[in-house]
């Protein structure tokens, strides 16, 4: 079981709820994924009104824990305000904190992120910060009161998969006891399996499922890959080497090369 701010969750897949072909297909995908947590963008879906209306109603009926996010926020002030709005709408103190620093790459503004995280944890929020794989930023976020980190493995929606494996490995070994959730950049199930094999605790996805030809089937595929990666991490993988190793012992043969 994965422990996030004192809450135990069994699924290691967190699913985004944006840009599905229809709410019906979104609901199917969430069911097929067996995810315990879905993330919901407040800013984009409310269009100025604070009720959220039918879409939020649908999310509430999915019977999963909601992790609201501050997607689309570019400043500390916007992100803090959106987090407070989310707390009202979904009656939760969880917040996935995104402060975007670049409109084009959607790279997080890590300076504003740390500041917003400090303000929000001070107000009792349980902050899940969307960050880069930078270790110093990670330290600062932990200092600011975050107990979970969500590093990207590639830019949001890019579907490139882990582009800097050494950085992810080093993050895992620097923070062995902090729940690390890879958020953003995962395009296919094999990408999710790779980061889980590195020992990451969970994966958060949206576009890879929402944009698939059959989102529900893709959600199930990711669930399988994430479980496989997690199991492999615990099972202890062999290391690659640059020569062939016969699986049958060669002792007793004439030449031992």
């Amino acid at each position: 079981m994965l422990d996030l701010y004192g809450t135990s969750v069994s699924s290691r897949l967190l699913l985004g709820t944006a840009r599905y072909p229809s709410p019906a297909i979104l609901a199917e995908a969430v069911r097929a994924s067996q995810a315990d947590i879905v993330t919901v963008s407040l800013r984009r879906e409310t269009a100025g009104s604070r009720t959220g209306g039918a879409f939020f109603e649908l999310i509430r009926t999915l019977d999963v824990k909601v992790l609201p996010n501050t997607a689309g926020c570019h400043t500390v002030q916007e992100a803090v305000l959106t987090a407070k709005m989310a707390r009202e709408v979904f009656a939760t103190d969880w917040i996935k904190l995104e402060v975007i620093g670049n409109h084009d790459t959607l790279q997080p503004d890590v300076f504003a992120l740390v500041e917003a995280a400090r303000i929000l944890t001070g107000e009792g929020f349980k902050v899940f910060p969307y960050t880069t794989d930078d270790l110093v930023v990670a330290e600062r976020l932990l200092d600011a009161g975050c107990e979970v980190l969500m590093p990207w493995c590639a830019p949001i929606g890019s579907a490139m998969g882990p582009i800097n494996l050494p950085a992810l490995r080093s993050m895992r070994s620097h923070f062995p006891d902090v729940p690390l959730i890879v958020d953003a950049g995962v395009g296919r199930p094999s990408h999710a399996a790779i980061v889980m094999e590195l020992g990451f605790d969970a994966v958060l996805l949206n576009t890879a499922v929402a944009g698939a030809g059959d989102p529900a089937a893709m959600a199930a595929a990711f669930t399988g890959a994430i479980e496989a990666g997690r199991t492999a991490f615990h099972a202890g993988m062999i290391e690659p080497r640059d020569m062939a190793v016969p699986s049958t012992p060669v002792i007793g043969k004439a030449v031992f090369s």
Partner: protein
Amino acid sequence: MIMRVLIRGAGVAGLTIAHELASKGAEVEVAETAARAGGGASWFAGGMLAPWCERESAPEAVLTLGRGAADWWDAALPGHVVRNGTLVITPPRDTAELARFAARTTGSEWLDTESIETVEPGLAGRFRKALFFRDEAHLDPRRAIAALQEKLVAMGVCFHFGAALDFPDAGFDRIVDCTGACAIGEATDLRGVRGEMLILETPEVRLSRPVRLLHPRIPLYIVPRENNHFMVGATMIESDDSGPISARSVMELLNAAYALHPAFGEARVIETGAGVRPAYPDNLPRIGVDDRVIHVNGFYRHGFLLAPSVAKDVTAQIIASSKAKFAPSAGLFKPAFPTEHRNANPLEIGASR
């Protein structure tokens, strides 16, 4: 005995059903709370009859039910439908989006720089690759609604504008409720999906067909209209808020238009608008029967595309019910209401007067 039908709502759904019923000899009246026809979601529609493109994210039913739409509009309103196809393009850095779009759809062919210039000279030299959906069409929704209303009046359909919500339905054999987004909150599972659009005017860009610009975050389309006007749309936001367009949406729509052709930078903004599309959870329209009231709603962003085939279905149901009980047909007939209400007490319309 002539069948008398009251239609509530003079949007694209109400008017197409009125047309089908009146063509079959029914006596039709239309009650509309607004002062004019097509003032709801229809007013902000793109008017693209593009079932192959829509298949990218819509279920198969949108293609099967929508492929006859251009023929229907052409027959009902000769001269309104432009059959020039649809062009789908991406900025050079997003060509992966084009491949994804092609993989999810059928009915297109690839164009290279030269053939783009041949098909759409106004975009010459601007894009290296495009998808061309040759069989698609478009119309101007506002002109089409006005023309359809005029035709219906000539056919003897009586319109009541500024009608009360509870416009009396005594004496009618059937009531068809086509009130669209006004039914949000009353019809089970019906929700609003906000759409924002703008209209630009420039003599410097020439397009002869709708152009869809694929972008990972800001997909948009531009539909050419008369008088050098271009409709640019449309956002898809899960909300039933119909308030004015947001600054961000204006910025994104204009950015994308500018990316399509820099001359849009000099265009004049003639209009901005925001409306609410009525939609069910699967984003497909539903026909629900509740005694003598038939509810038709949930056209989402496919009003002009799907209204003709739904209108034919509804009309066939009403005609069949005048001789026999209602029976589901065409696979569209989903119970929008508890099943015990369906098929209940079918009126023998032929004997009702």
